[in-house]
């Protein structure tokens, strides 16, 4: 099968695999399976997950995942590491690295507004996932980095996150407020002050004070952040990086995945592989169409029940293939891997290996 060769080729040739898709489609498991398979091919692979994902830690035989790569022992020729994204400490590290002095760094880390950024600002988690990816890529001691991504609905949240955050940190309105202006600038300044005072009336003055203090402390660091955002964006469209779109065959998740693929394409990024989890199995193609007829004629009997059951599964399998058709077309010529609805959840390395068999 041509398509299976391609996904294993990606595993063996690329340096970064980004698993993206909407929530609940099995992204984390897919990412782990890809990293495990790469280790089987003899590569030194690391998987970065977003969720605390206790189940994944269990599956990998770990007590829990931490913010640094942990080596997982197993009978593969390469090496396998796993780690969890810690949004806050990644951001802290970035602030400290960009600060002109230790005091400036500390002032930002202590700011209440800053403390909210990692938890509240939309896109922060996406940005930090990309930042961590960049750091790991710079280290050069991993052959392959597989990143799981936050379950965003819009692919751009995530391609755009670095740029969006640096725009936020360079917010014109606040920059105007904190910088002493002259002439024309002063007029703008006054208007901005008035505007913020009105906002403060609604949300409370301390909220605005925190924000202004943050932008004051951050002053001078935006250039470093902007450069880094550009570098991260370049890495994502680099030839070393491949996007793997993960979906399930439900109609709504297929629609979301299509939208995802389209927005990625608009950003100049191609989906290199599509993984569809939870496909219903097909039983007896030869009976197609007749099973429901038989079920209806023999309703209420054991044989009628058996035909009804077969008809149910034929129906769901053919509907799922129909839903999928538009998506496989949208990502063409990316290979499509179908992983069937498994009898149980993935609990251990054997479970991950079982998924790998369907994936590759």
């Amino acid at each position, binding site marked *: 099968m041509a398509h299976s060769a391609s996904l294993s080729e990606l595993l063996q040739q690329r340096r970064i695999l980004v698993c993206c898709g909407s929530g609940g489609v099995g992204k984390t498991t897919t990412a782990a399976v890809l990293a495990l398979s790469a280790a089987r091919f003899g590569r030194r692979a690391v998987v970065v997950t977003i969720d605390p994902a206790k189940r994944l830690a269990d599956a990998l035989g770990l007590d829990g995942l931490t913010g640094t790569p942990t080596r997982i022992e197993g009978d593969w020729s390469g090496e396998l590491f796993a780690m969890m994204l810690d949004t806050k400490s990644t951001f802290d590290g970035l602030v400290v690295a960009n600060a002109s002095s230790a005091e400036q760094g500390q002032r930002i880390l202590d700011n209440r507004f800053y403390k909210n950024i990692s938890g509240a600002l939309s896109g922060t988690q996406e940005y930090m996932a990309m930042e961590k990816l960049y750091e790991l890529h710079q280290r050069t001691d991993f052959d392959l980095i597989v990143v799981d991504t936050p379950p965003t609905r819009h692919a751009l949240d995530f391609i755009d996150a670095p740029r969006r955050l640096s725009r936020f940190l360079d917010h014109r309105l606040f920059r105007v407020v904190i910088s002493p202006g002259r002439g024309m600038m002063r007029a703008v300044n006054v208007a901005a002050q008035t505007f913020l005072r009105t906002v403060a009336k*609604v949300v409370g003055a301390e909220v605005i004070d925190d*924000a202004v203090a943050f932008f004051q402390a951050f002053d001078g660091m935006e250039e470093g952040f902007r450069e880094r955002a550009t570098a991260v964006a370049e890495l994502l469209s680099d030839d070393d990086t491949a996007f793997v779109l993960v979906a399930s065959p439900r109609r*709504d998740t297929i629609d979301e995945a299509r939208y995802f693929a389209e927005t990625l394409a608009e950003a100049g990024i191609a989906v290199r592989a599509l993984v569809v989890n939870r496909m219903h199995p097909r*039983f007896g193609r030869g009976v197609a169409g007749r099973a429901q007829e038989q079920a209806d004629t023999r309703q209420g009997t054991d044989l009628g029940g058996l035909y009804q059951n077969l008809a149910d*599964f034929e*129906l769901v399998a053919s509907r799922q293939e129909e839903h999928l058709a538009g998506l496989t077309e949208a990502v063409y010529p990316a290979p499509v891997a179908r992983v069937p609805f498994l009898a149980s959840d993935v609990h251990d390395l054997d479970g991950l290996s079982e998924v790998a068999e369907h994936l590759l």
Partner: protein
Amino acid sequence: MAGKGGVGKTVVSAVLAKAAARLGLSTLVVEVEGKSGLATMFGQPPLGYDEVVLSAGGGPLGEGEVRARTLTPDDALLDYLRDHGLSRISNRLVSSGALDVVATAAPGIKDILILGKVKQLERHDAVDLVVLDAPAAGHAVTFLQAARALLDTVSVGPINAQAKDVAAMLTDHARCRVVLVTLPEETPVNELVETAFSLEDRVGVGLAPVVVNGIYDPVVGLSVAPGAAAEAAGVTVASEEAASLRAAATFRQDRMRLQDEQLIRLAERLPLSQLRLPFVFSTDIGPAELDHLADRLLAEIAALAEPV
């Protein structure tokens, strides 16, 4: 309605609205993520910000009306500012991106605006029931917790008042309940249990019975060998076809055994009644499927009400 992504939260919201309409209640479904198949299930074009009628109601049984609307944080903010006589700054707040700064300074502000709007809709006389299709779980706890969290950050002013009102609505079990939705599978069950306890502890919200979606209904004859079943019916079945019937029967039996294990596990870990909805093999939920699911939900609710 709250639940992990992929469990069919929006479908269950539609089913609940339809079931309520059957009981004569006028229902409003509020969708917050700006992208869902809700309207399609009622055979209507996709939702916009304006309220639309998804199902007119009336008829011989006196059904209630089902309406729906999308409510995004930006929409809710504009409404809020207009209601507070601040429309002139509202556009600038959104277009300058200052809203992001404000929302970061006071996390939860977007959530509170949405919940505040829901509270306003709840007061509306024409609506008997508001079904809020909440953000995917994980986020659901943060979303509902926003009121409390915000009371700590913003100590005065209209937002503070808004947060107090929202907190009062959420914790009043006669006005508001959270319906958690899950699938009969291990991970979604674990997450549901976790969410249930966090919601009770951290938000103080009342929980309704949980909805377990996507249950394979039993079918007769699954344990009977196809050959024997054919013989009993006085026909013969080709061996290849018999093998397909057997394989499909085994698959369903295996899945049903696993789902029963999960239902038992859920009952053991969470002392809430369960409402079970069947898996829809045709996969597309349209008006006919919705009707069928609403029947099932009403039957499940009726069964709950009867003493065991």
